């Protein structure tokens, strides 16, 4: 059983309330940081921990913090990215809904480290009731002296405000989130300047994911080095995974990044195997944007080695034969699922969520969706596959923000690994309306090229 840092107390009765959370050792990290550490020391601990941003990009959090500009007399802000919208990902919601004080605690310590006296939680608009849960937690924390003026006599003032979005995936991109926080359309900004220099209201701003900020709590409690001891290589600490799709036990799991993908899918501690006794066909291991892999490449790398649930191993083989950890949204497809249809829904999603600011994404996402719809509904042409490939290639890397890449990658990976399924749809339009391509050879063991 892997070690749990974030969800250890998740099942304690009443943990959502301040009293129980505090009784279970909550807010110790605030006491430790504010009473015995300088902000720089907190940043140093986070750096030592090797904690990587849990929102999807995996950028080292401590390094991000150290970039924040500190011009004299200009307020700085910490903004928590709770705009969780990547299909397949629902871990932040779990943290906020069930252990809201963990996030509040992480926010206070992180605000102290960054010198943010007004900290914001940008939560996706649809999580309306969770905004209420967080507001209640904030009130409780404030009532008990962990927020407000001169917290614990340290001289540090901090307020946390909840800002509800209103339905826009793009606001999960940090500069779009900042625009939205400013009451504008969620159009990503052109970088540079980076938020650390000029963020919300032109002030230095750090935007971090919910899980990242929660992880600061055990890092401060136990020390960065202790945290870094968990996990493997540059994948330190624990990671929350949102498991969904055709598995027996969808839900949120905390792993220490040393278990194999196979174990994660089939062990009863985690996903509990494929639902209805079916066989595994494919999986998107890190949220809808990352490349889909067929079963054979998911469980083993192209070199024939066991694939593990961590940043490096999931990315092994690059985009040719690997994928990414991303936001940890683990989407499993069983043998009866249609990759073409699934890819079409994702293309529809990105088309719907494109902000429309820059041309490749605005026009290209809709074009891809239309072609995929044609293929799915039996109107595809053989040339469509190459056309799709070319469109995604023209979008990738050429847009203002990563949404363009996020829209291109799923299409590219689906064609890369499931081209024959696309071709079957096109050459058998009638049959494709009645049944699916099935498992085909996607779980067959791969031949491993002999190493020289």
């Amino acid at each position, binding site marked *: 059983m892997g070690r749990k840092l974030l969800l250890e107390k998740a099942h304690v009765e009443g943990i959502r309330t301040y009293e129980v959370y505090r009784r279970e050792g909550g807010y110790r990290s605030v006491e430790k940081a504010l009473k015995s550490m300088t902000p720089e020391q907190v940043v140093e601990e986070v750096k030592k921990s090797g904690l990587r941003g849990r929102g999807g990009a995996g950028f080292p959090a401590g390094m991000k913090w150290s970039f924040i500009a500190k011009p004299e007399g200009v307020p700085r802000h910490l903004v928590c990215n709770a705009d969780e919208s990547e299909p397949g990902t629902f871990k932040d919601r779990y943290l906020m809904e069930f252990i809201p004080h963990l996030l509040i605690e992480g926010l206070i310590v992180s605000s102290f480290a960054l010198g943010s006296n007004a900290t914001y939680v940008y939560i996706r608009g649809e999580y309306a009731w969770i905004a209420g849960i967080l507001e209640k937690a904030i009130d409780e924390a404030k009532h008990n002296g962990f927020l407000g003026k001169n917290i614990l006599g340290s001289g540090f003032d901090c307020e946390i405000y909840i800002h509800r979005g209103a339905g826009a995936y793009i606001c999960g991109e940090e500069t779009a989130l900042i625009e939205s926080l400013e009451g504008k359309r969620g159009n990503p900004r*052109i970088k540079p300047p980076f938020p650390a220099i000029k963020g919300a209201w032109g002030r230095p701003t750090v935007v971090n994911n919910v899980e990242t900020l929660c992880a600061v709590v055990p890092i401060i409690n136990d020390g960065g080095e202790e945290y870094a001891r968990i996990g493997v290589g540059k994948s330190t600490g624990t990671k929350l995974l949102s498991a969904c799709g055709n598995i027996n036990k969808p839900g949120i799991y905390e792993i220490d990044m040393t278990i194999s993908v196979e174990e994660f899918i089939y062990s009863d501690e985690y996903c509990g195997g494929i639902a209805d006794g079916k066989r595994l066909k494919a999986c998107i291991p890190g949220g809808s944007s990352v490349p889909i892999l067929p079963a054979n490449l998911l469980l083993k790398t192209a070199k024939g080695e066991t694939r593990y649930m961590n940043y490096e191993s999931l990315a092994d083989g690059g985009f040719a034969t690997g994928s990414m950890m991303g936001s940890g949204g683990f989407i499993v497809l069983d043998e009866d699922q249609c990759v073409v249809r699934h890819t079409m829904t994702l293309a529809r999603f990105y088309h719907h969520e*494109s902000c*429309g600011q820059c041309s490749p994404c605005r026009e290209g996402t809709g*074009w891809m969706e239309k072609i995929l719809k044609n293929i799915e509904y039996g109107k595809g042409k053989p040339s469509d596959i190459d*056309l799709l490939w070319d469109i995604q*290639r*023209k979008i990738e*890397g050429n*847009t*203002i923000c990563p949404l363009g890449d996020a829209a291109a990658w799923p299409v590219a990976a689906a064609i890369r690994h499931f081209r024959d399924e696309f071709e079957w749809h096109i050459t058998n339009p009638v049959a494709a309306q009645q049944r699916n391509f099935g498992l085909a050879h996607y779980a067959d063991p791969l031949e491993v090229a002999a190493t020289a």
Partner: protein
Amino acid sequence: MSEEKKLFKVTIDNITVEVEPGTTVLMAARKIGGEVAPPAMCFYSKLEGSGGKCRTCLVEVAAGSTADPRPMPKLVASCRTNVMDGMIVKNITSERVVDARKGVVEILLINHPLDCPICDQAGECHLQDLGYDHGAEGTRYEFKRRTFKKEDIGPYIQLHMTRCILCYRCTYVADQLTNKRVHGIVERGDHAAISTYISKAIENDFSGNMIDVCPVGALTDKTFRFKNRVWFLKPVNAHRDCTKCSGKVTLWNRGDEVFRVTARKDQWGEVEEFICNTCRFDKKETKDWVIEGPTLVNRHSVVSQGHYTGLEMPKETIQEVMNGRKPKLLMNIHDVSEVNKPEIDLSAIQGPAHSEDFK
């Protein structure tokens, strides 16, 4: 300490130029000029905050700077990327750029109505130019093109949303030149549109500049609508005393008739000085203006094909000086020279001709 400002050296398509720090790659490239300057559909040097959106000006940075010569992994928008000292940029010398730009042009055109035959912007449309210069011959798009509900935005400006490429320039004009913005971008994604949302008339002393900055035919001059083709008109520079603006304009004439008034534009198609709506819409008679002379028109522009009506063509004078006699053949060169022998078929010579070939 030297008072001199250090200039940055940047090399674009193998041509090095020195520019002040803070200059963008695009502006540095324009300093070199010609094809080295990337096309720009959304960037407008006179509108703060513009650029970055259309992605036609993407370039490859082969070396970031002398201090950090690593290449940038992605193509960058040259209009929003500042030069660094020692930066090496590839525009038309980069295959990646040419390929990406071709993609952007195709994508900009998939939902464009291509209604140039009935579009007033034809002949001075940057999207037309872009398509000719950087696009492919055909499109691979086979779906119904996007349409929008028509919106009336008042007596001066005609809005054709189907032609819009969402460069946002007109919103910057409204923000930066007028006292109150009544139009903006509504909806999102590929439904995003220029609109007032409530069909409000856009009336403001400087709103007409939205027409000039619009790179396509999305915003055209309603007072000029369907009146004439720009290439049939004769642009002349003119001015008048105006209390609101510089009064320096270009008149688009046919004979003595002023068909429309626009701001003067530079070689990049950008307005030199913004003009007021009085000059643009209300002064349409020659007597309102002091004519300065013909506007310099780029010889590649279709406008340069325009007929300057009333202009006398030079006459054929040979017959006149010969008192009506037709010129006659004075001599055949072959009769007096042995150099070019008529029996030698020049086209049969492989490569350049040598004296040997005529022996």
